[in-house]
């Protein structure tokens, strides 16, 4: 398969820089898979999983915030967090999920609910990326 160059940057630095075959990522509009030769493209990212395929090997990650841009076969992902499955603290994610669920059940405040739901979906993204990466 043809490769393209992918860069992933977070505020803590460049987490990935290399040639890959495919990138599957969750945008605000839904999952998008990018292969080599993709047309110029730009989209904001939602909270969810990402999958990188390089040399036939798949790696999973949890992503939140930011955007993905494709330009002349160069792909940049700029996001607030990007954690590969082997970097995810699964116990912490599970704890965060339970806490967020409890808080959503017990509270009726709509402002806090949006925040809690974002917390919950981040935790769910981490758990599912971790399970896929096992």
């Amino acid at each position, binding site marked *: 398969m043809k490769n393209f160059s992918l*860069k992933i*940057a*977070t*505020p*803590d*630095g*460049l987490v990935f820089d290399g040639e890959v075959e495919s990138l599957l990522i969750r*945008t*605000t*509009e839904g999952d*998008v898979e990018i292969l080599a030769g993709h*047309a*110029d*493209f*730009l*989209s*904001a990212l939602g909270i969810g999983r990402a999958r990188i395929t390089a040399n036939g090997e798949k790696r999973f990650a949890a992503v939140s*915030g*930011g*955007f993905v*841009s494709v*330009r002349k076969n160069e792909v*940049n992902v*700029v996001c*607030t967090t990007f954690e590969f499955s082997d970097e995810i603290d699964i116990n912490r994610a599970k704890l965060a999920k339970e806490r967020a669920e409890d808080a959503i059940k017990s509270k009726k405040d709509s402002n806090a609910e949006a925040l809690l739901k974002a917390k919950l979906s981040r935790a769910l993204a981490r758990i599912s990326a971790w399970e896929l990466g096992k």
Partner: protein
Amino acid sequence: MAGSSMNDIKARIKSVQSTMQITKAMELVATSKLRRAKEKAESSRKYHELLREAIADVSSTNEAKASLWSEKRDDPKTLYVAVAGDRGLAGGYNSSIFKMTEAMAKGSKAAVLPIGKKAVEYFTRRGYEIFDASNAEAADFGVGDAMKLGAAITDAFLDGRIDRVVLVYTRFVSMMTQLPSHEELLPLSTESEKDARDAMYDGDPEEFFLNTVPQFIGGAIFSSVCEAVASESASRRSAMNSANKNAGEIIDTLMLKYNRARQAVITQEITEIVSGADALG
């Protein structure tokens, strides 16, 4: 009397020596902090560059040109995000940021968002309109804090409470050079070095901006705080280094004075003894 001036000089030498001990310790602390801060600044710089590139790309497309994000408003009220340090004793580090901000804010409508204890104190005392004074710890400033500010600033921009956003911070060029610099974040600049292209938007472009601009501003603030923290340590290190050199020089001259005074006392005593012996003989 020569004896008392000798004691005076001795006391001064002691006091300079104890000051030197403090400045030496501060230099060591700044050096070790600098190493960590430098790594952090360098890794966040890449993020900042990619963000800026992408935003420039997006802004150069036609959708963005028409959008309210890049429109220059009349008689704008500018929000200056001023990043300075938590402590003094870092040479001109804090004051050059204050000077730069004030020079730009002069004669126009302005508000300030200070980051760092010194900046909060300075701009509050000067009577500036403060956007948010809760960021008094530049050293502990995290990604979460930056993203919150990014969202708050974007809200204020959309509400029309502010019309322009300028970031003022100290750029970390090298261990020896730190440059006070400024960068306009909003309205988005429509001038791009590359040709304007129509990027393919997935969904509504306004939606994209609404999602991305707060992150762009938060990211720019975070990365500039990282640079500023590294710059602060570097400029404190060089300030303390020259303080050490100064103290060494002062001690040397005082030593010379002390020895001279001691010599004068001895000479005087000999003269007295000789003349006393002469009078007896």
